């Protein structure tokens, strides 16, 4: 682990540096490709909407061993129950002791008939979920309202905290990036979209911004008083901030992903399908995208927007010109090498300030 610390130290001092801001065109292109693929995914394939969005009935039958044999047995029991709406059920295992069967919308009487049929076929306990056809739409509509309100509130918050509209813009772009990618992964992989997935998506909003805020805070600290600086320029300072917070970003991602990963694995192995899996999956994908976007999208974009600012532009030009001069001067210095370094300040002839002995310091 010592190596990571040294790595952190080197990142912090700028001895080791990844060029996140300078090579933004590369990162933008990568993100763009992923986003385009994702967008294409959910335009062409659409989402695999769960029963909550379509309406229907979901049965969870507890059995001793859930395997393809018992699934067939249970599914047949449902289709032979004599309920017209349940003539074409879909069944699958859910964990290792439950079978999930989904049918079209049924009345409560019909669902009781099915429950009895399942119990007769050997299920020890049947859980039922009757879902009205408008439930999913309500969730989606409400979530959309929530999304819009949240975005407005957050834009104002970030603007108020950083006093910088560009950071708000960059944060929102990064957010859209994360949401699009997560949505795309869902569309392309065909994972089922349920209200729990929507919850997960909305949580990503919070997380993605949370991560971005931490990085932006460091950027702000590093670029404080940048207009007066003669040596530092904005993009470099922003990049330094990214490198300095890189170890934190990695640590944060790991500690955030570990519990979510645990949730995902337990959700899949113990419960099979269900809200736990749906939530964890959306979070897992979104958090990965969120960490990526804070580093590769949000900060480079904030920096780019800031560089377009008139004052910053002028300051950057000044510093670069000055550096140009400094790099030209070594040609002069390359001539006879002095024994000890001689500065170009012309201070050599001046008397150096002398230091009093320690015992006399602080006394007049």
């Amino acid at each position, binding site marked *: 682990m*010592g190596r990571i610390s040294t790595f952190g130290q080197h990142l912090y001092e700028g001895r080791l540096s990844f060029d996140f801001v300078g090579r933004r065109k590369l990162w933008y292109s990568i993100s763009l490709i992923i986003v385009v693929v994702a967008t294409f995914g959910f335009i062409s394939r659409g989402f695999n909407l769960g029963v909550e969005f379509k309406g229907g009935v979901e049965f969870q039958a507890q059995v001793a061993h859930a395997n393809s044999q018992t699934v067939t047995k249970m599914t047949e029991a449902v289709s032979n129950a004599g309920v017209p709406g349940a003539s074409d059920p879909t069944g699958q295992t859910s*964990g290792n002791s439950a079978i999930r069967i989904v049918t079209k919308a049924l009345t*409560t009487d019909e669902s009781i008939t099915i429950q009895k049929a399942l119990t007769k076929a050997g299920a020890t306990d049947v*859980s039922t979920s009757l879902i009205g056809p408008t439930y999913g739409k309500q969730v989606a509509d409400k979530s959309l309202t*929530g999304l819009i309100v949240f975005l407005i509130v957050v834009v104002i918050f970030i603007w108020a905290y950083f006093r910088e509209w560009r950071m708000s813009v960059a944060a929102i772009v990064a957010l859209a990036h994360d949401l699009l990618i997560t949505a795309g992964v869902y569309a392309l992989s065909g994972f089922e979209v349920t209200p*729990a997935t929507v*919850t997960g998506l909305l949580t990503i909003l919070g997380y993605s911004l949370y991560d971005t805020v931490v990085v932006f805070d460091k950027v702000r600290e590093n670029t404080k008083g940048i207009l007066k600086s003669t040596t530092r320029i904005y993009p470099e300072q922003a990049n330094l901030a990214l490198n300095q917070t890189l170890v934190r970003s990695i640590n944060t991602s790991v500690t955030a992903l570990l519990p979510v990963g645990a949730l995902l694995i337990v959700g899949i192995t113990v419960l099979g399908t269900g809200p736990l899996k749906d939530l964890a999956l959306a979070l897992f994908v979104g958090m990965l995208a969120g960490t990526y976007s804070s580093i590769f999208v949000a900060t480079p974009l904030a920096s780019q927007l800031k560089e377009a600012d008139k004052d910053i532009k002028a300051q950057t030009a000044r510093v670069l010109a000055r550096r140009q001069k400094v790099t030209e001067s070594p040609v002069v210095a390359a001539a006879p090498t002095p024994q000890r370094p001689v500065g170009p300040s012309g201070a050599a002839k001046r008397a150096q300030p002398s230091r009093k002995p320690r015992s006399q310091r602080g006394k007049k």
Partner: protein
Amino acid sequence: MPTPQTRNSNLPRPKRTLVLFLVGIVALYVLVALIGLGTKKGDDSVWKPKLGLDLQGGTSITLKAKPAHKGGTVTPTKLREARNIIDQRVNASGITEAEVTTQGGGQVLIEIPGKKEGKLVDKVGETAQLRFRLVWTGGLTSSPTPVDTSAQQKQIDAIDWSKLSLNQMLKAELDGVSTLPATYQPGIAALQSQAKGFQCLKTGLKVEDVANKPLVTCNPKTGEVEILSPAVIEGTSVKSAVPAIPPQSVEWIIQLALKGHAVKVFDTVSTALTPTQAQFAIVLDGKTISALSSQARITDGRSQIQGGFTAASSKALANQLKYGALPLSFDVNEVSEVGPSLAGSQLHAGLVAGLIGLILVVIYCLIYYRGLGLVIVGSLLVASALTFALVLLLGKGVGFTLTLPGIAGLIVAIGITADSFIVFFERIRDEVRDGKSLRLAVEAGWARARNTILAADAVSILAALTLFIFAIGVVRGFAFALGLTTLIDVFVVFLFTKPVVSLLARTKFFGQGHKLSGLDAGHLGISGRKVTEIARNAGGDA
């Protein structure tokens, strides 16, 4: 450029802060224990979080209110009235442990722990069924034991009663049911034998009230069993229902006004019934609430209901009558019956996932931060203790129930909580790298990390708050848990982690950078000086 240590004047005494905070947590638990003393002996439920139905099994029914026709609105007042009536209906069906609550988005949630009662939705989901029926045969007595009359019901159902005209029905009341055409006579016979075996229960009376069929029912207050005609006026024709005390009277009545076609029907009915003072019945949800004899011809659709009401009961009934007339109906959003074994495995899975997540985070922190990792472990434990206490208290106080998404929210929050510590520790390291001694770095790093943590947590709380306000159903449990833990995180990092680190920085093990403390020079990646020293070129333009 060493920073003066006294810059943080608001946190000069870490020990005191720490003690006060820990005392606060203990006080919370004492509070829980005190609430526990107030409950019955042997009831330790106060120490168990209130579990949602997905974790303990039971039935939950979510209904979504909607205006029955265009132009109507769903107001909170209407929704509350609806809730009350649904609550009464649920109780009337014999289920006493049910909880009926209103939710955001015009929803009513019925929760019945431990039982599969999904069928309930058929009874409670419809608008209050208020109907006016003619009393074909009244004054019958209740049977002492219930008799199975499903065979008779089949006979009654087999006849199409909707062809009966109002005049035929009136004639049946005035001149006897034998005046009805022969095709209806088997049905009448069935009704009469059904009435013989009818047991009038005070609560849990089960009657299937269908508008265009005759009905055998009773008035639970008086116990009088009646055979009633198909409905002549529907509850949706009620224009208004107002409780009032008429002049020169001490008894509360309800003034009823009808609208539309019902006014004319009422005119016809009252005209026909007045000479003999024959009765008509007002039936609410299958029960006769009032049987009135018509005193006079009523042409304006205004009537009164008398029946020994008090101020409260007349108001409740007026609300029910009005509600029957209100354009509020319900869509069924979800009926979910969770069996005990699924509930058990969901609870189990949630707890296991939480435990695994916690252990993984702890292991990672210990490997990476070594000694400091223990501070994270301690902080997470304190945060867990605080969360548990608050979940218990909120369960008692505002009825917060822990659902599966709620547990997921708590688990996700582990990451967010741990991140606050990471931000803080990385800042300390940065300050040491900048050349500060460890003790100074703790204070200076804190001053900087504090703002970052606050800003980041604020975003997280905003997200949770928005989710909570705009979300439906289970999502709210998740948002609540997430918001709660983020808030707890702020408290823990300010009042526990920071003071602990400040204190530890004074110890030899941490302050002088022992190899296992996570603060040794090598681990921090600095070279050429000890962590207790201030670098010569400190404050350089890094």
